[in-house]
């Protein structure tokens, strides 16, 4: 399939069209400086969506990512309050490790006990949120309690883009490399595309799903630190409901919820689409209350579109049997 006809190209065209429409009402929106800040703003969504992509590819879903982000972010903030001089690199390492550990809990329950992922992550989502409350006692950690290097690092501007934006780019490139060039990356596609065939080619389906959850968790942890530092505040309800936006970004990016189909570029574009809508609403004078309905409509349009273009071209033996699925 050539790039022009691909889902990514259509999505890219939709984004360009959207930017054009916004520019007719508010030209300053498409200046490089503003686009860079929109990109930075969308980075956490993009990072989480890339983790979610891997999970959805293996026929699972991770609804605990936003709670994981909030819990890891809160722990990072508390560590920072207790030890303000801890180097940022170490904080990021802690965030990645802790996020991965929380993801591993999901992964183990899915792998070893074969509990449906939606049940596991619904459960851990509420548990993680509750744990934040227990840790913080419901208190907020505010900007003045955090050290300047902790909050300043993601916001430093290098070559016109924030460090957060560069981290997002690095994650996207690493994920692209992982998915396209490593056996592990290919196994995610194989496991999601056809689990039975995957078993007969010697792949361990449960293990691949476990690793997908670990990756998703680690990226959620990373996003947790970036989020807390960027907004310089940590509390229980941070990023509440964000998991749905993450799933929306994946669906819009062309990740099939049935597993096995999707791309890093599509996911990045899906996240960007939502990010642009979110940032454009206030400047074109539409109430931000429209955002929820718009992302809902975008999910429905995207999933309908995916289903149309993704129809298998195999021979249909009995037409009506198709509808039973």
């Amino acid at each position, binding site marked *: 399939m050539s790039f022009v006809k691909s889902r990514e190209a259509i999505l890219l065209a939709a984004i360009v069209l959207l930017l054009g429409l916004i520019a007719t009402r508010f030209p300053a929106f498409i200046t490089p400086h503003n686009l860079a800040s929109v990109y930075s703003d969308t980075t956490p969504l993009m990072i989480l969506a890339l983790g979610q992509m891997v999970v959805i590819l293996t026929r699972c879903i991770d609804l605990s990512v936003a709670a994981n982000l909030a819990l890891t972010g809160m722990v990072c903030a508390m560590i920072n309050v207790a030890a303000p001089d801890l180097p940022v690199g170490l904080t990021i390492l802690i965030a990645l490790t802790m996020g991965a550990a929380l993801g591993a809990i999901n992964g183990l*329950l899915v792998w070893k006990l074969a509990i449906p992922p939606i049940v596991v992550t619904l459960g851990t*989502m509420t*548990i993680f949120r509750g744990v934040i409350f227990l840790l913080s006692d419901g208190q907020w950690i505010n900007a003045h309690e955090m050290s300047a290097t902790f909050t300043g690092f993601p916001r430093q501007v290098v070559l016109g883009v924030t460090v957060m934006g560069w981290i997002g780019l690095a994650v996207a490139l690493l994920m692209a490399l992982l998915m396209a060039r490593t056996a592990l990356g290919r196994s995610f596609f194989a496991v999601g595309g056809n689990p039975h065939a995957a078993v007969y080619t010697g792949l361990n389906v449960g293990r691949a799903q476990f690793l997908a959850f670990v990756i998703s968790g680690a990226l959620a942890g990373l996003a947790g630190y970036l989020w807390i530092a960027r907004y310089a505040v940590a509390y229980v309800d941070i990023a509440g409901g964000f998991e749905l936006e993450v799933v929306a970004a994946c669906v819009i990016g062309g990740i099939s919820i*049935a597993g096995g189909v999707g791309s890093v570029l599509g996911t990045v574009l899906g996240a960007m689409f939502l990010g642009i809508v979110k940032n454009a609403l206030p400047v074109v004078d539409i109430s931000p*209350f429209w955002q*929820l309905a718009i992302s*809902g409509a975008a999910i429905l349009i995207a999933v*309908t579109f995916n289903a149309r273009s993704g129809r298998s071209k195999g021979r249909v033996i009995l037409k009506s049997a198709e*509808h*039973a699925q």
Partner: protein
Amino acid sequence: MSLAETTSAPEARARGPVPDRLRAPWEAKLKSWESLLLVVAIGIFILNSFASPYFLNAWNLSDATFNFTEKAMIAFAMALLIIAGEIDLSVASIIALASTAMGLVMEAGFGTPAIVATGLVTGLLCGAFNGVLVTRLGLPSIVVTIGTMSLFRGISYIVLGDGAFRGYPSDFAFFGQGYAFWVISVELVIFAVLAVIYGVVLHRTNFGRAVYAIGNNPTGALFSGIRVARVKMILFLLTGLMSGVAAVCLTSRLGSTRPSIASGMELEVVTMVVLGGVNILGGSGSIPGVVIAAFVMGLVTFGLGLLNVPGIVMSIFIGLLLIGVIALPRLWAKFRGRA
């Protein structure tokens, strides 16, 4: 599960020796999920009455039922939907939209009958929207209802913004605040009636058998002459309608509508259904199980509330309950398989 595990040790996976006879009906009943739940419910009840002196009071117990009646109304329809292999995550958002529509009708000066009718019709329409997307376009229900979850609540936010509807007529309070007799609330009566209706429909009618058949094997059900798409459509309509009923009760009880009404309730409904022994993958489950699960969840949250445990900490218990009830039997089976 790896290939080696599935082929090299089949005997390890067998469930013990073949029994000489089937279990007696009373024995099967005694060892069922429902009786286990009932024991848990009674245990929690006893613990609660020891933990707080205020628990064993008819009015307090009556208050406790409000913790689950609205959720359970939706859970009955959701149970059928999940047994049939689908799911609806938009139920809480349907409540928000139905409540908003009721508020608009109220603002326009209509009385209680029109308000209630609006709530129910809005629920039905939302269910129809989900059902059409799933059955006509063949889209996965989990994605569709994640989408409509944002869409429905999003419309409420567009209408209401950060405002609220207040000033419902006083006779509208009947549904959420009224009492049928003594401590038996109107909501509890609606809950009981719906429990009986859904129990009969699922366990005593052809329609109920069709629901199980679809959940176990949709293609097989289709070839057995079951109109799969139509049954699923009806189930989505029922779930929408029940969300409408719950919206009437909840709005009446709160006396106001905000766009954030009932947020997160979809998770509690799904938890209730799964706790009630319904297989999240479809094909099995029962209404009595869901009824007992409703009582268990209501008693847990009410008991913890009496002990001044904050709501968010209760959600830890709900989350642990959800994972625990599924994980423990599987852990037990694994443990027995190795021994």
